């Protein structure tokens, strides 16, 4: 007999019939029974007395707090309360560079934007530059005063003691070391040189945790000049990359993404785009954008480079050297490169001298130099020197070092052999760290002389010859910190005002190089305002190959690839963590990796076939080279390879960074990125990732529509044919909206978007989106208003990857609006699906009814809550909040507003200036941050606007159009330049 569940004892009676209606009416009866109403008992009456008395008492006791308004004593002319100021500055950190505009409200910087005047970066930014403003307010991790062995100390006393050590080291015949990453600042280098002149014992060592010195050295070996050419992807019609993740992390990703996108945007009038072939082991952002991606083992990659060289040499009549067979059709590739002579570019991400020499030779045969590789205005990145670093450690070990100083470098975390360095450091009597915030190296140093954050500093940088970018402070130092350069000036017994120094430097070095301003003061003010000065300075080299270089390189490379292990691993930077410097930035920690969509973790990626062979599944922890890492199955990963992101596993960086992930630097023994896996095994334990997208397939629905270039040339709506069908079948019962004035539309060019996720951070910074932490992300409660969906197409071992930025679609027939019981979400006169937080009662019906899943629910109060101990839980951290956007309370739904505050601001500006709103006046945060300019926002009621043109493009489609939601966000189909 079937098992029956019952709720009350009556139900067990076989004659029992449930009397739902009766019981319902009986409950109502209690309320409507007139005997009850008439006989308000004394107790009820007393209750009424009490209620009226106490509600009156309680309510009148709710006093409005007295709020004070404190004006300035002397209001600065430039500062208007309630209005933002913008300052041009530069984000410079080692090799990383971005010319930026800083938005400052009431004296505090709150948002970073790209500087359109900088032709090098093209006005874009990246996630790290976007998030850098948050590090300014990191009061948990920032050093707040100069200290000696943890004790507070005065600047003068510290200066005296260090100066004494610098002097005495020379007398004792010992060395002092200053370790810095690549310095893009010419004035800082000049300053270090004068310091060296004053203290001859001082040695200057440049070292990058993730370096590009092999490229520089390869040019020295091959062409006789240590330089890195500027990579002009915008001039290329064929791009071949060997593990160079140039769209996300490699050398100058902001500039490269901008240039790359220029060759990827196509229109009916100009149906031409570059072709991108990518060789790599793990799936990188750049690789996932390639037209043809070849997953290969790192050693095979080097074999391919050798073979490609030989094939090209054979075709161009250059000497050929024997090399191992790679198994890839390099002949066809060589022919293709030569077919694009002068318009191809070959790049290699391996920090391997021999490989880079061969790449130089290949580029030379492809006639890239002078065309796609600028050998006059060369890059300044990659000045690190591994050998000098090794020598320094040796000297330290031998006790020859009196003083070691660390500027913007944290080798105790990211030097491959950090333990050796640590014991060597113990041998040095005095050490100094200039760290801005907590790091592993500063912890071990005698002195901590905290440097200013870049938003509190003066400075200058020259990322590429002929482009000077100025850095100016946007606020007074928050803590008792002093700029590194000012400290150097103090040691030179000079005035510590670096502003005066840099002004003097500009007068001497920059002012004579321009002719626009005859007066220096005028020049200085205007250049500072622009942030950028472009001059005709060059650092050129002749692309003429030295003899014997290639044969040596091939010979050495052959031995390197000859005896490699079956399983190899690669480490790489990712868009958020880079070399680990920004690990304590909760925005970056919570940024899902563009490819795997994992936040708050790094992981060992293996291929599906490898996982199947060894019976592995997502989250299994494996132990390789005696490090335990959780693994994931990554479609497109090369067989027998493991790749792992750098920058995680910090131990002394702050509450957001510590103990998150695994320190991949620990696995290395040198600067190269290719390593053998000596041993590996499954540990048996598992790990749960914080993953924001667990479903990877579009289930056969045309969510992301793509086509190939050939098909596009034949028919401009290739891949988008289904749209016609949908348009024909559109009908609705609801009245349609009319838009008398503006009708805002956002267009996303899927061909230009490379998935770098800069927009996600920009949106978070602009809209006060909270960080929720690993646990909450695991529960799928991430609050990002926009996300980048990533889908795989094709076979598992080498799938095609498509990215789709997804924000609120602002549907004209919005499903969310119809179900809101309190009309908290409704439609505006300008086509915006608006959300009134104070009206929302948190039913979440709208979330359930949204087919795009772009609405977010505030499960908790994320601000001022110890459970979410991120930036919003500290007085200083909340300074970054945008005062133009409400901080949402618990229990309300939120979502993308098209940056309504910016729309309102632009409209008001136009009204006050008594003019029509121009196209381009409104720039939402995502659009402004995008290095590829993949997003375009505007008013389609303005027939001259860009969006009005783009929405008519045959490539345009709307997501899930068949639901007749009429989204105002449009997507342009992705076109791939595939053969066949």
């Amino acid at each position, binding site marked *: 007999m079937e098992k029956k569940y019952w709720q009350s004892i009556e139900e067990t009676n076989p004659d029992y019939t449930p009397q739902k209606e009766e019981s319902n009416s009986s409950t109502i009866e209690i309320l409507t029974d007139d005997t009850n109403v008439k006989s308000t008992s004394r107790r009820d009456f007393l209750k009424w007395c009490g209620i009226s008395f106490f509600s009156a008492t309680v309510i*009148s006791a709710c006093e409005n707090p007295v709020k004070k308004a404190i004006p300035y004593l002397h*209001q600065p002319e430039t500062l208007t309360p309630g209005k933002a100021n913008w300052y041009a500055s530069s984000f410079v950190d080692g090799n990383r560079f971005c010319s930026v505009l800083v938005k400052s409200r009431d004296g505090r910087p709150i948002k970073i934007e790209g500087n359109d005047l900088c032709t090098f970066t093209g006005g874009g930014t990246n996630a790290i530059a976007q998030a850098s403003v948050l590090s300014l307010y990191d009061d948990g991790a920032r050093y707040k005063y100069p200290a000696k062995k943890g004790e507070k100390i005065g600047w003068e006393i510290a200066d005296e003691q260090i100066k004494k050590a610098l002097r005495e080291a020379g007398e004792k015949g010992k060395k002092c070391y200053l370790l810095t990453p690549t310095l893009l600042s010419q004035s800082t280098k000049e300053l270090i040189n004068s310091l060296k002149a004053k203290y001859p014992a001082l040695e200057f060592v440049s070292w990058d945790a993730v370096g590009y010195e092999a490229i520089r050295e390869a040019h020295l070996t091959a062409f006789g000049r240590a330089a890195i050419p500027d990579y002009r992807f915008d001039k290329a019609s064929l791009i071949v990359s060997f593990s160079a993740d140039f769209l996300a992390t490699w050398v100058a990703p902001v500039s490269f993404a901008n240039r790359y996108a220029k060759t990827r945007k196509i229109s009916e009038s100009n149906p031409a785009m570059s072709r991108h072939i990518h060789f790599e082991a793990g799936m990188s952002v750049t690789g996932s954008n390639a037209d043809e991606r070849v997953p290969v083992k790192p050693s095979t990659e080097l074999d391919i480079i050798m073979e490609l060289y030989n094939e090209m040499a054979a075709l161009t009549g250059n000497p050929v050297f024997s090399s191992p067979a790679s198994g890839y059709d390099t002949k066809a590739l060589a022919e293709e490169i030569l077919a694009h002579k002068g318009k191809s570019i070959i790049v290699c991400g391996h920090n391997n001298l021999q490989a880079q020499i061969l790449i130089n030779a290949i580029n030379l045969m492809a006639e890239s130099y002078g065309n796609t590789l600028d050998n006059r205005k060369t890059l300044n990145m990659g000045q690190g020197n591994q050998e000098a670093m090794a020598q320094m450690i040796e000297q330290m070990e031998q006790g020859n070092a009196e003083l070691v100083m660390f500027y913007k470098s944290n080798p105790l975390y990211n030097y491959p052999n950090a333990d050796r360095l640590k014991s060597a450091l113990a041998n040095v009597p005095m050490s100094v760290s200039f760290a801005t915030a907590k790091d592993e190296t500063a912890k071990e140093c005698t002195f901590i002389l905290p440097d200013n954050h870049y938003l509190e500093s003066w400075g200058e940088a020259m990322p590429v010859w002929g482009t000077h970018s100025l850095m100016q402070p946007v606020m007074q130092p928050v803590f008792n910190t002093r700029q590194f350069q000012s400290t150097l000036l103090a040691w030179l017994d000079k005035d510590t005002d670096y502003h005066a120094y840099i002004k003097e430097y500009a007068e001497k070095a920059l002012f004579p190089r321009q002719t626009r301003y005859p007066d220096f003061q005028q020049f200085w003010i205007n250049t500072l305002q622009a942030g950028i000065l472009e001059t005709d300075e060059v650092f050129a080299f002749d692309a003429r190959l030295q003899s014997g270089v290639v044969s040596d390189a091939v010979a050495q490379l052959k031995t390197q690839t000859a005896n490699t292990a079956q399983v190899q691993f690669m480490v790489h930077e990712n868009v958020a963590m880079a070399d680990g410097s920004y690990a304590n930035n909760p925005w970056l920690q919570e940024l899902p990796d563009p490819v795997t969509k994992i936040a708050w973790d790094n992981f060992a990626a293996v291929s599906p076939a490898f996982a199947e062979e060894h019976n592995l599944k997502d989250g299994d922890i494996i132990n390789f080279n005696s490090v335990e890492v959780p693994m994931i199955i990554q479609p497109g990963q090369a067989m027998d390879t493991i790749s792992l992101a750098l920058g995680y596993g910090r131990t002394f960086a702050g509450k957001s960074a510590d103990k998150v992930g695994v320190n991949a630097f620990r696995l290395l023994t040198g600067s190269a990125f290719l390593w053998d896996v000596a041993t590996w095994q499954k540990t048996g334990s598992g790990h749960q990732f914080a993953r924001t997208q667990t479903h990877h397939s579009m289930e056969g629905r045309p969510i992301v529509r793509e086509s190939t270039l050939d098909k596009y040339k034949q028919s401009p709506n290739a891949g988008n044919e289904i749209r016609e069908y949908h348009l024909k079948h559109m009908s609705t019962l609801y009245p349609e909206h009319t838009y*008398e004035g503006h009708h805002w539309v956002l267009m996303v060019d899927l061909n230009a978007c490379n998935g770098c996720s800069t927009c996600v951070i920009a949106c978070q910074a602009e809209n006060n989106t909270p960080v929720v932490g690993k646990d909450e992300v695991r529960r799928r409660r991430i609050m990002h208003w926009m996300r980048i969906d990533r889908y795989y197409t094709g076979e598992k071992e080498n799938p095609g990857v498509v990215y789709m930025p997804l924000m609120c679609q602002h549907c004209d027939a919005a499903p969310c609006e119809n179900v809101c019981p309190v009309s908290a979400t409704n439609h*505006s006169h300008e086509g915006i699906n608006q959300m009134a937080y104070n009206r929302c009662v948190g039913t979440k019906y709208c979330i359930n009814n949204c087919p795009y899943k772009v609405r977010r629910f505030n499960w908790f109060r994320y601000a001022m809550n110890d459970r979410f101990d991120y930036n919003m839980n500290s007085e200083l951290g909340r300074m970054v909040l945008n005062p133009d956007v409400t901080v949402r309370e618990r229990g309300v739904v939120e979502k993308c507003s098209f940056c309504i505050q910016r729309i309102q601001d632009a409209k008001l500006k136009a009204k006050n200036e008594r003019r029509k709103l121009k196209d381009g006046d409104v720039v939402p945060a995502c659009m402004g941050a995008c290095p590829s300019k993949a997003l375009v926002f505007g008013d389609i009621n303005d027939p001259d606007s860009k969006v009005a043109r783009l929405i008519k493009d045959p490539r345009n489609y709307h997501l899930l159009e068949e639901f007749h939601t009429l989204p105002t966000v449009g997507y342009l189909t992705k076109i791939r330049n595939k053969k066949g």
Partner: protein
Amino acid sequence: MKKNQQISGKTWLKSTKLLPLSAFLAMVTIMLFTLNSVLATDQPETDEVMDTTEVITDEPAEQTEQQEEAQPEEAAEEVSPYVRGEYTTQQIRRGERLFHGLAPFGSGLHDCASCHYTQPQKEINWNPAAIEMARLWEQDPGYSIMDIMNNPVSMRLMEDHAGMTITAEEQHLLEAYYTQLLEKGPGELKAYPIRAAIFWGLGFLMLLAIVDLIITRKIPFKGVHIFILFIGIAVHGQFAMAEAQRLGRTQDYAPDQPIKFSHLIHAEENEIDCQYCHFTADFSATANFPSNNVCMNCHNVVRTGTLSGAFEINKIHRAADNDEPIEWIRVHKLPDHSFFSHAQHVNAGKLDCAECHGQVETMHIVRQVEDLSMGWCLTCHREHEVDFFDNPYFQIYERLHEKIKNGEINGVTAAELGGEDCMSCHY
């Protein structure tokens, strides 16, 4: 059901003999509470003192115990017993009596309290309050009441304090009183004394009625009890409702400001434009409180006010000297989730300040005239026509322009252009 309830009610009452006791206790508590709240605010006392104890003596008294030039040799003898900072409770008491005129001054002059309040007031009194003078005295070790009284420097001081002098002993006593004032702080202002009396009085009456109705049964007519209780509930309910509606709104809020600044003097009599001081209203979201240097534009020259003499204006100068900005009390404030822009309304909307702020130029103390509720905002959005014809921004509304041409409509209100959209104010 009905019976059940009544029975249970009665039995409960009978079984709990504690009721009379608890009622008595509650009564005592309420009385104590009322008494306490009255005592906590010393304002009525002060007022009383001021009204009743005016000592009028016209005895001219030339004081000889002057500290400085007058008779320095005597001063040295006389001043030494009165060391600043050392006061006995006896002296404090005497100082207070002196200030309030309960003990006459040696010179027979007016008591201080006839002109100076002890605490800042709801209604304006242009003379400095005792607490303010006490603060000044506390900040400045060289501050001497005697000097000011005996040798007034400004016109106002001279006129108002003509013939008033005090002795070193009296100064010492007044200083003693100052210390007490400083210790006690400004105290709280009693908000609505009449309403409070009604509230508590009715509460007390209701309690009595209930007690009599259930236990004592002295009054045979139940109608009396019921009348009292119904009136009580109604009045309390009305209070509750009024307060609930006002919750978060501050209509009629007119706080005392750190400087007795009169908009009437500045905006009406001297005809200074609103935007001379609140200049950012034209181009920024917020209408600024003028910074000190703006005040100084005039008050560098204008050192004495018509009403308050130099005392209030000195505060601006002192703020500049001490590098301490003036902490004004904000009157008009919207909740954080409303993004109101002055520039939008003043510049683009061409609204007059008075439309939202009332006739500020007629007020000594600024009072919030409108309730600044959302309904009030929306009413204006629905009624107010925008600058549709002159401002080229509105040219994009082609269809509406056409309708006007055809005579279908006369003008366009803000609401018709999206002025009712949630996200025009809340984002």
